């Protein structure tokens, strides 16, 4: 899910940087100071989750947990993911500093969108909560893969075949991610619902 340095064209890199800067700014502005520790811990979870690889399909795919961050943090997931991506580039050489903008938007954008759209379902019954968890995990990765294919397409790397390949290779991990997000969400709703703050609207 991390695009390497030196692949994308300059306009794509610039566009990604602008979008990510804007998203991070909004996220920081909306961030409730009382939730800083939650943001940081979930950022750490995201940082580590990318190391868990799912050895299925032709590529090399790993967990993201973007949907979980989006559900819990709303806009706050944006800075959480961007900071974690920056550290991944530094420590693991995943992605890179110059492509941070594009990778950040590819991963954080869908995470925030899915989180905000699905959050209202959490105040429903157990079935609705499970649905919210699964769909958040599945869809955030689906749209991230789609954005990644778009970024490659805009840099002249062909679209249909690449998009097909990326989506196909990420399909198993999307399902796994959906299941994990579903279990974590239902578990948290049972033991510590205030983390997900159901009923309140994500700012």
């Amino acid at each position: 899910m991390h695009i390497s340095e030196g692949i994308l064209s300059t306009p794509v890199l610039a566009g990604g940087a602008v979008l990510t800067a804007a998203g991070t700014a909004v996220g920081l502005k909306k961030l409730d100071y009382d939730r800083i520790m939650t943001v940081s811990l979930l950022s750490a979870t995201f940082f580590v989750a990318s190391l868990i690889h799912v050895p299925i399909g032709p590529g090399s795919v790993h967990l993201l947990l973007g949907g979980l961050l989006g559900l819990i943090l709303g806009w706050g997931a944006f800075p959480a993911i961007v900071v974690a991506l920056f550290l991944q580039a530094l420590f693991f050489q995943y992605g890179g500093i110059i492509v941070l903008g594009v990778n950040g938007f590819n991963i954080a954008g869908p995470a925030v969108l899915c989180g905000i759209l699905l959050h209202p379902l959490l105040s429903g019954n157990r079935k609705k909560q499970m649905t919210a968890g699964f769909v958040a995990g599945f869809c955030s990765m689906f749209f991230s893969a789609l954005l990644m294919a778009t970024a490659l397409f805009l840099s002249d790397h062909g679209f249909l075949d690449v998009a097909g390949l990326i989506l196909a290779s990420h399909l198993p991990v999307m399902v796994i991610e959906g299941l994990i997000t579903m279990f974590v969400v239902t578990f948290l709703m049972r033991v510590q619902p205030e983390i997900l703050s159901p009923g309140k609207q994500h700012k």
Partner: protein
Amino acid sequence: MNTLIRLLTLSFLLSSSLLLHPQQALAHKIHVFAWVSGNTITVEASFSARRPLMHGTVTVKDKKSGTVLLSGQGNEKGIFSFPIPAKARQEAMDLLITVTGSEGHQNQWLVPAAEYLPEHLPAATVSEETIPDSSKTARTVSSLPDNQELKQMLEELFKQELAPIKRSLALAEERKPGFLDIMGGIGYLLGLAGLAAWLRYRRAPDSPAK
């Protein structure tokens, strides 16, 4: 506070379960390695030591000018071989080999001219004393290959013998994220949170925290 402790436990469990299965912690980037044997350069690309990058696009460029000399596609084992272009030999080009995967992964490996051009190797110094006195060894000299031939034979032999060693050296260089990287990253993130909290509460020391 309770929330914090539970979240901490959750992330600790996640990271420790990960550390217990280091074989799953494969780097998510591609590794490129190329070695010279005779007139051929073989390029190998993999996600890790065990998962080859299938059908990656290989581009060979002159490092100085950036001219593309040739390009091709790796096989399903991630291997691509090509004969060294005559132009590269003539101009003693350092070859920059780039392998691009279909999913936006890319990495490079440099083959310096010295690796495939014997004349660019540090010149072998043959001191006068080591040359055997022709009169003493006249008997055997005729049956031995001369210096130049011997040198070439040895070079070929070394290249063949050293290729697998070079390969495993390159694989050993492959740096997997270790315990320190993971803990360091988590430490940074917690530190950032502390910094943000400090900045927030330093601004208004008298007013009660919200």
